[in-house]
């Protein structure tokens, strides 16, 4: 997914607090109460297995029943703010991704078993895709009987429309993998108006020989296509239903639920989509009658309501928000509440990106890497339930994750190795008091971490100039190629469980551009070559190449100091059944939830 963006604008509750002072009571000794351990890397192991591509048999519905599942009732959903998008083409951020799981369907989808093993199955397509010509050509056949919410049958024209509309200017926020693979980085030039003015991509690129067949033609092997197509961003938009910009407010559903009422900034209601046929879907269920979203509840009150578990909160879940960091302790130290949590890794690795155009000496970068007190940085982000110290730049959710990989000794010395750092600084010949500009996002976490970074780097002789950037534009500002900053904390997570969705966007020198997530501007021929080679290989074979690239990046170039892997902990009400952590979405698994007493 895209870098973490906090879209929540905290309401300014300024005064009034003084009055509540007298009410605060005593607190008990807060230490060591919880025996429960935070999820550690062992638990993430399930997120590491390579994804398998399933055949037609596994792609047929209906999905396996969830043990003890009942039908009926409505689940309440607590969200801080509106979903970022509802038009599938625009969906890239996980809140809308979860929504897409209920409402939209793509050519393929991820199926997750009880142990968290992932398979790519056909969703609207009969299977995960048939490669030919060494992986350069992919053929998809469509299932019979898939309809949109108005009963129109989905044909290959709709699939073509879905891909082609991403070329138009209507779509600007979604993933760009498939378009780029089909038409290159400047893909928009090939079809500037999308399909809206009657033009289409040539058959040599995207072919629809009959109503049930779609063929993708690439100029090089694209073994990751089935996983890319499983992203919410490539879910089908039926040609007849497409209302361009308006589609973002009123999308047509293919999945088990459809939008029945949407009040911007307030609420969203989903009801059963009667046109959805369980027999065509091997992943989704339609246990509950609907979902009621309230999009105005901030994280702290979500947590409070769910801890209290009274009335409608019993039927409530958190969507993509987590337990409020201040209240994590209340949640995990209370066994009855702790039972109602899902915990797991998020795919994000927080790293201190160096601007390689400014900090050119690797010794300085290494020194800073050694000096960063990763432990304290985690403490500033909710402690052990918010994150875990990182040794490398690959998250525990990626296949082939090596928990022992720790070239900079961050795991051994969680508060940094100042001696080593000072030594390196001396070797590099840096004068005491050299200025370094550290840009940070002006959020409570950003401010706290800024204090730590400033303190640590001052100890090795830098004069750190901390610049605050408004959090809404943080990634935009540091994404500029000519940004004036030396250091910045960035987070990036995979789009699907493959290293290609981490290394390619973030460390590929050929992708450096304004707004690209290559925040460090690393451009190493060796890394670029490894990426090029790995992209052509099947996931299993590619793993070795990715690992090689990873080591080269971390040890020999060091464009970004690994700091910590982020984790999530979510609460749900006592009447919710089937709740578990989803490896694919890294949030509560929305496909299997039901109400115990509808």
């Amino acid at each position: 997914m895209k870098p973490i963006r906090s879209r929540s604008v905290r309401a300014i509750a300024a005064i009034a607090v003084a009055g509540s002072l007298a009410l605060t009571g005593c607190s008990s000794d807060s230490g060591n109460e919880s025996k429960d351990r935070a999820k550690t890397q062992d638990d993430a192991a399930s997120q590491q297995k390579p994804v398998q591509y399933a055949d037609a048999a596994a792609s047929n519905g209906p999905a396996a029943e969830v043990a003890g599942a009942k039908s009926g009732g409505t689940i309440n959903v607590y969200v801080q703010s509106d979903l970022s998008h509802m038009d599938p083409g625009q969906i890239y951020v996980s809140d809308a991704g979860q929504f897409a799981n209920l409402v939209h369907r793509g050519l393929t989808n991820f199926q997750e078993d009880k142990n968290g093993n992932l398979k790519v199955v056909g969703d609207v397509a009969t299977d995960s895709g048939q490669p030919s010509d060494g992986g350069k050509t992919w053929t998809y056949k469509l299932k019979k009987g898939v309809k949109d919410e108005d009963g129109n049958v989905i044909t290959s024209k709709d699939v073509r429309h879905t891909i082609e509309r991403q070329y138009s200017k209507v779509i600007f926020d979604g993933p760009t993998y498939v378009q780029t693979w089909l038409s290159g980085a400047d893909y928009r030039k090939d079809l500037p108006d999308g399909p809206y003015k009657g033009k289409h991509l040539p058959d040599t690129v995207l072919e629809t020989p009959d109503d049930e067949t779609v063929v993708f033609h690439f100029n090089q092997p694209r073994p990751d296509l089935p996983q890319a197509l499983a992203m919410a961003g490539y879910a089908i938009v039926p040609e007849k239903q497409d209302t361009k910009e308006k589609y973002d407010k009123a999308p047509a559903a293919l999945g088990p639920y459809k939008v029945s009422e949407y009040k911007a900034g307030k609420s969203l209601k989903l009801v059963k989509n009667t046109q959805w046929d369980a027999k065509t879907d091997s992943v989704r269920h339609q246990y509950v009658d609907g979902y009621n979203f309230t999009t105005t509840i901030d994280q702290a009150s979500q947590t409070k309501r769910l801890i209290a578990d009274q009335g409608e909160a019993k039927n409530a879940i958190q969507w993509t928000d987590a337990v409020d960091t201040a209240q994590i302790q209340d949640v995990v130290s209370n066994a009855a509440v702790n039972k109602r949590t899902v915990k797991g890794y998020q795919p994000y690795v927080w790293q201190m990106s160096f601007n390689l155009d400014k900090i050119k000496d690797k010794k300085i970068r290494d020194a800073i890497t050694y000096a960063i007190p990763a432990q304290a940085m985690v403490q500033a982000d909710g402690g052990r339930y918010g994150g875990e110290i990182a040794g490398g730049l690959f998250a525990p959710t990626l296949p082939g994750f090596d928990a022992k990989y720790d070239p900079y000794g961050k795991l051994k010395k969680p508060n940094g190795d100042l001696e080593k750092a000072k030594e390196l600084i001396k070797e590099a010949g840096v004068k005491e008091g050299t200025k370094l500009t550290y840009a940070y996002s002006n959020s409570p976490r950003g401010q706290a971490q800024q204090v730590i970074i400033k303190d640590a780097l001052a100890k090795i002789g830098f004069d750190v100039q901390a610049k605050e950037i408004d959090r809404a534009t943080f990634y935009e500002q540091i994404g500029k190629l000519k940004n004036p900053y030396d250091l910045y904390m960035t987070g990036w997570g995979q789009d699907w469980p493959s290293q290609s969705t981490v290394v390619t966007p973030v460390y590929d020198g050929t992708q450096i551009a304004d707004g690209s997530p290559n925040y460090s501007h690393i451009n190493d021929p060796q890394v670029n070559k490894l990426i090029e080679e790995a992209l052509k290989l099947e996931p299993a074979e590619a793993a070795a190449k990715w690992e090689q690239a990873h080591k080269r990046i971390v040890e020999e170039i060091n464009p970004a100091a690994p700091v910590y892997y982020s984790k999530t902990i979510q609460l749900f009400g006592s009447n919710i059944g089937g709740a578990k952590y989803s490896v694919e979405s890294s949030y509560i698994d929305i496909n299997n939830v039901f109400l115990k007493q509808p």
Partner: protein
Amino acid sequence: MTSPTKAEGPGPSVALDPELAATTEIAVPKKLEGRSPGQLMWQRFKRDRTGMISAGVVIFFFVVSALAPVISKLYGKDPYTLYAQEPEYPFLLDDFAMPSGAFGGVSGDFWFGVQPQLGRDVFTMLLYGIRNSLFMAMVLTLLCVVTGVLIGLVGGYFGGKVDYWLGRVTDFFLSFPNQLFFIAFMPIVTAMFVSPTDETPTYLRVVAIILVMWFLGWMPMARLVRGSVVSLREREFIEAAKVSGASRWRIVRKEILPNVVTPILVQATYTLPSNILTIAFLSFVGVGLVEPTPDWGRMFRIGAEIYEQNPSFLLFSGGALVIFILAFNLLGDSVRDAFDPKTGR
């Protein structure tokens, strides 16, 4: 507002206050003695217990903040060190980044506990926070008083067109929505003077805060002073001074100003605490002083976020703020009463 005749009159004002007569030197037979208004005020003030206590509290705060560096040195901690990372204090914070000791980590080493997440010392943070707030509020109050008095005097004394235009300017400034203006302009003011690669220096933030607040803070004083001056302008003693050929400047300085000192002083004692609150508010919403400068308002904000888990943090920072503001406001009341005993509450 005090009436000039009363403040001017030497003896009779004792008679106005029979209580006062009763308490003064009983042993020595009464010898009528002139007392200045200041002495009278002081006598009345001394008998006001609330006033004395709140004066004590306020003085305590001022002394503590003035001596913050000394106290911090004797106490052996400073507000910037992240003690949770120092090898001497390995278990200051628990797994949840909260203080591991009871009641926010209060101990012999950390009298007011430690800050969650970062592990700084709350006691010295509070000391320096008070120091910064008081310093800024005092400078700001001084500026507002001087500006307000000048504009009020000029407008009130000269009258006519000058008064009209100054009055309109005052009205214009009064019509700004203060707090929204602060939030919108603080980042712009700081961004104007700093290169994009350099951190905004703390002194610049302080100057910017004071300037922006001064800009919108002098009007109440100007209006008050103008009102008093207008009522004084036509009095006989002013006319007498005019007739005897005193210069305008002398009249303003020697005849008018001494008669408006009381409302100025009273207004100033109300302005200072409200300035402290506004400065704290700016930090609370994130446009005032930023980390790592210790600040009262920001401590309050952190405390408000975690008050359920760690009430001590809010208790210390909020408690100090409430006590100070309350004491200062009571002091203001007492000062007013002492100057002007006839005005009922």
